[in-house]
């Protein structure tokens, strides 16, 4: 079965609204990262957050390890936030990384 499940699959917002993206995983994760993939395809790491809460700019990630879930909150969304957000876990620190299928975010002006 799928190791990492992300929801929603797609999300459409008006500029200024907040976004809440979810990531659930089927086994214990020793590491968890959130990535952004631009419409052109390039991928950048946003946050590494295996547990607890982390902030960077308008992004907040909260991971509850024992419940096997993580969320990514984007505040005051901008049109440039449009793209795909991917969650990835490493189960046993053995570099076997599992990615979810992503949430496609569209922010309208």
């Amino acid at each position, binding site marked *: 079965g799928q190791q*990492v499940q992300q929801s929603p699959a797609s999300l459409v917002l008006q500029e200024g609204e907040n976004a809440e993206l979810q990531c659930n995983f089927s086994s214990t994760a020793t*590491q968890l990262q959130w990535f952004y993939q631009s419409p052109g395809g390039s991928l950048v790491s946003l946050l*590494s957050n*295996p547990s607890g809460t982390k902030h960077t700019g308008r992004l907040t990630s909260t991971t509850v390890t024992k419940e096997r879930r993580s969320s990514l909150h984007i505040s005051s969304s901008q049109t440039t936030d449009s793209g795909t957000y991917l969650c990835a876990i*490493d189960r046993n620190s053995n*570099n076997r*990384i599992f990615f979810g299928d992503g949430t496609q975010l569209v922010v309208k002006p």
Partner: protein
Amino acid sequence: GGIITQTPKFLIGQEGQKLTLKCQQNFNHDTMYWYRQDSGKGLRLIYYSITENDLQKGDLSEGYDASREKKSSFSLTVTSAQKNEMAVFLCASSRVHWGETLYFGSGTRLTVL
């Protein structure tokens, strides 16, 4: 700063052909990865390497070979291209292991005729 360069950006091959994708990084990173991304899907790990001459199979290694002859380069060979493997292939690297920030190249889009 550094950069990961993947070549070619677009690769067109015939069914059954052997095709090679290349990846270079100048971060001096230890670990390098090859992923495949099918349209609208997440990434699946094909091969990774934790140091020069090391190779580790991922979940999708069947039908692929990889080579890490230098620390800075990691190549992937599709041993016999099939139409159902048209996808974007992404190379990535990290300093020690993936718990560190992972840096990605811009991808090679494979089309099989």
